[in-house]
């Protein structure tokens, strides 16, 4: 394999320039993991792509040599989607960070995959627009990674996920061809391959340019923070809000332990003694927001304290505690696992009690942070790796929480992706036939299983012979693998 990689490195240096090809062992180690740092693999080779042509040339070379490749953007993914392959090439797209076009009159932005999520909104805002998907990592995660992971965020309750905001992509397919999926106008004729590509976690190719939908900035945003004595009360308020037909931009919840961590880390100053806080964002036309805000205040009547953000600064403060919650638990625990599961929103109170039981049964603390509006839980399982057996107990508890998500008819991942981390859980959500069917698409795009192999699917499917008669101008999107967001 080593000889093969040397030959590949030589070909790539000639094709895209020596400065873009990394083979030094120490430098390679920089890329050994993504945001899920407990998995580490040093790649055989790293390519720092500067253009679509670089990506295409690299993938083509991999295809010719039958060498696997993994795409990586900012490397913030939390499921190991961008974990390198030991015998493969890691294609890093973070240098492809050109905003090609902001077209407000088309309500579109065209960007390269390495562009940082938040930078799209920054570029669009002067024109009165924003890019809606807002993973917690939006200050560092890239659009290419968002496309791979179908990233969500707090505001996807109202605005939808990445897949609802990507209208076109240039994709290098695993055989090295550059194809166009979707476009600037909606409803491109033919199969919705773009819909299959978004969220395919780098297993169908790499995207090199993405056309995004921009959304008109809301006239008004109002935010409240409601503190409840118990998490049940906060859950009941959430259900009442949704049940009343209000669609807030976001409804976020944190429990006492998560609040304690956030206070320790960023001094967000939430009301003392809260068993749970809710953060509710309403946005839209003035008159709608006023009417709905009054309604939400009424529905939060059980709260012992409600604060209403006086302006952007205070809104940012409310959100600061929430957005920093994952990192914040580092202040109250040496180690922790970030879980990501989904349940039907109405099951929230029941499932939280069950999580409490799991926590007690395994002797590990669990802090709960979640997108209450859409039932997306992010339990943080706290442990100390220095204590013998605790990491194992935390892992078991974390798995038991996913069991609950499945038991209640939810999902094993709402936004972090399957990646490397959750392949083993896929058969609990899907039948063998379901997984085989998904891999029919994989076989159409990547018959030799070179694009991010070992991710998403627990058992790879052999694709058989690829019919030659329709080969030609393919395309394919993928983006770089794995950067799920952090939310």
């Amino acid at each position, binding site marked *: 394999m080593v000889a093969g990689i040397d030959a590949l490195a030589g070909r790539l240096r000639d094709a895209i320039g020596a400065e873009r090809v990394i083979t030094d062992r120490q430098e390679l180690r920089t890329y050994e993991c993504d945001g899920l740092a407990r998995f580490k693999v040093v790649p055989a080779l790293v390519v720092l792509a500067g253009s679509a042509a670089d990506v295409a040339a690299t993938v083509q070379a991999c295809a010719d040599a039958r060498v696997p490749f993994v795409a990586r953007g900012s490397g913030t993914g939390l499921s190991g989607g961008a974990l390198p392959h030991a015998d493969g090439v890691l294609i890093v797209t973070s240098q492809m960070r050109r905003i090609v076009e902001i077209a407000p009159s088309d309500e579109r932005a065209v960007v390269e995959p390495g562009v940082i999520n938040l930078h799209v909104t920054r570029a669009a805002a002067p024109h009165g627009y924003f890019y809606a998907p807002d993973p917690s990592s939006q200050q560092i995660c890239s659009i290419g990674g968002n496309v791979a992971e179908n990233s969500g965020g707090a505001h996807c309750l109202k605005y939808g996920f990445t897949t609802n905001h990507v209208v076109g992509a240039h994709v290098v397919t695993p055989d090295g061809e550059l194809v166009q999926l979707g476009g600037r106008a909606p409803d491109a004729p*033919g199969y919705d391959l773009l819909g299959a590509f978004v969220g395919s976690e780098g297993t169908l190719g790499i995207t090199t340019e993405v056309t995004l939908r921009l959304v008109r900035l809301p006239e008004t945003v109002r935010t409240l923070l409601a503190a409840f004595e118990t998490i049940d009360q906060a859950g009941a308020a959430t259900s009442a809000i949704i049940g009343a037909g209000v669609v807030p931009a976001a409804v976020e919840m944190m429990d006492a332990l998560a609040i304690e961590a956030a206070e320790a880390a960023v001094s967000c100053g939430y009301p003392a003694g809260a068993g749970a806080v809710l953060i509710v964002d309403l946005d839209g*036309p003035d*008159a709608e927001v006023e009417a709905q805000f009054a309604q939400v205040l009424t529905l939060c009547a059980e709260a012992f304290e409600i604060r209403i953000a006086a302006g952007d600064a205070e809104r940012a403060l409310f959100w600061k505690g929430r957005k920093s919650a994952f990192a914040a638990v580092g202040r109250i625990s040496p180690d922790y696992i970030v879980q990501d599961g989904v349940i039907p929103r*109405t099951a929230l109170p029941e499932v939280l009690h069950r999580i409490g039981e799991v926590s007690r049964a395994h002797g590990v603390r669990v802090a709960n942070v979640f997108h209450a509006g859409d039932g*997306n839980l992010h339990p943080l399982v706290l442990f100390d790796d220095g204590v013998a057996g605790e990491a194992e107990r935390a892992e078991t508890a974390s798995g038991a929480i996913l069991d609950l998500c499945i038991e209640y008819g*939810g999902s094993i991942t709402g936004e972090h992706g399957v990646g490397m981390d959750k392949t083993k859980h896929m058969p609990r959500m899907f039948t063998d036939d379901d997984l085989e069917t998904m891999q029919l698409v994989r076989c159409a795009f990547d018959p030799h299983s070179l694009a991010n192999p070992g991710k998403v699917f627990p058992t790879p499917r052999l694709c058989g012979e690829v019919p030659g008669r329709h080969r030609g*101008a393919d395309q394919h999107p993928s983006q770089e693998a794995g950067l799920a967001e952090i939310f």
Partner: protein
Amino acid sequence: MAPIPQHRPTSTKEAAELFKAATADGLTVAIRGGGTKQDWGATLEEPDLILDTSGLTGVVEHAAGDLITVVRAGTPMAELQRHLAPQRQQLALDEPLPGATVGGTVAANTSGPRRMLYGTARDLVIGMTVVRADGTVTHSGGKVVKNVAGYDLGKLFTGSYGTLGLITRCAFRLHPVPEATAFVRARVRDVAGILAAIRGLQVVPSAVEIDSATSEVAVLLEGTAAGVRARAATVATVLGDDQAKPDWWGTYPWRPGDTGIKVTAALSRVPALLTGRVGLRGSAGTGVLYAGLPADTPPGEVARTLDELRTAARDAGGHAIVLTAPEPVRERVDLWGPVDGLSLMWRVKHQFDPDGRFAAGRFVGGI
């Protein structure tokens, strides 16, 4: 000639058995729901059997608190909406051709004015059960709105025209029925100026529609009573105060037997499309428009018009496809036109239906 055998399974399992038998016998298959779009897409060779979904009906689940429903594919759209209405919820998907089923709506990916706010079937489907050509029963997605486990095959099957298998069940995210709605409409001359002015408002319309036959632009607002009143007043500063619903709202500009064309464009190019000699109607808010040509239009003239529309749509970043046409027109024109990524699409088709038995030739590029 003997009539084509029709099969009417009453369960996913029964449909699967039927497809297994059809595979063993090498039979070709066509699927029929409400029958409102049987004439859409290229003409099929006569299939060996027709699968009628009218036995696959009923709402399996409506979890109002979770704003989701699971429904069998043969259920008429109207029946689903009636089922959801008592809880003041809806599947926010328009029904341009009354009588359509849920499965047909998804398989043909039809949409209407409200796509501007709510998106289309692809945005609302959260889970799907499909019987593959070989009879394999397969699921993707689930019953929760937020879910990234596995490939999102619901999107692949949405708009696939029955060429990949049979959709037997869909899970959808739902929306509340708004407390109030209002239309604001006007005849306009400066289409570009008016559309830009509406875009500039922060009123979040559910739809912005245009109809070149009447030179009208109409805006739909939905929300709370107080909110809708205020927003309609804001729109009225651009369009005036006529608040009657247009009679052309949400309908295609053609009759049965005519040629029906769908034209897409980047938003800023919509006004340019309207300067052509063909009338257009549809969503100026998203760039999805429709044109109709009467059944007796000479095929040569349809072909010339289609060429013009294709050129204009291409320049506008979109496409022009013929949804339906009389037989003489079908013989003359390429209904689908150029398609990006066609060879990949063929590879997908080959994986799902290697013998090409499902709706063969109906879809893009002869798929």
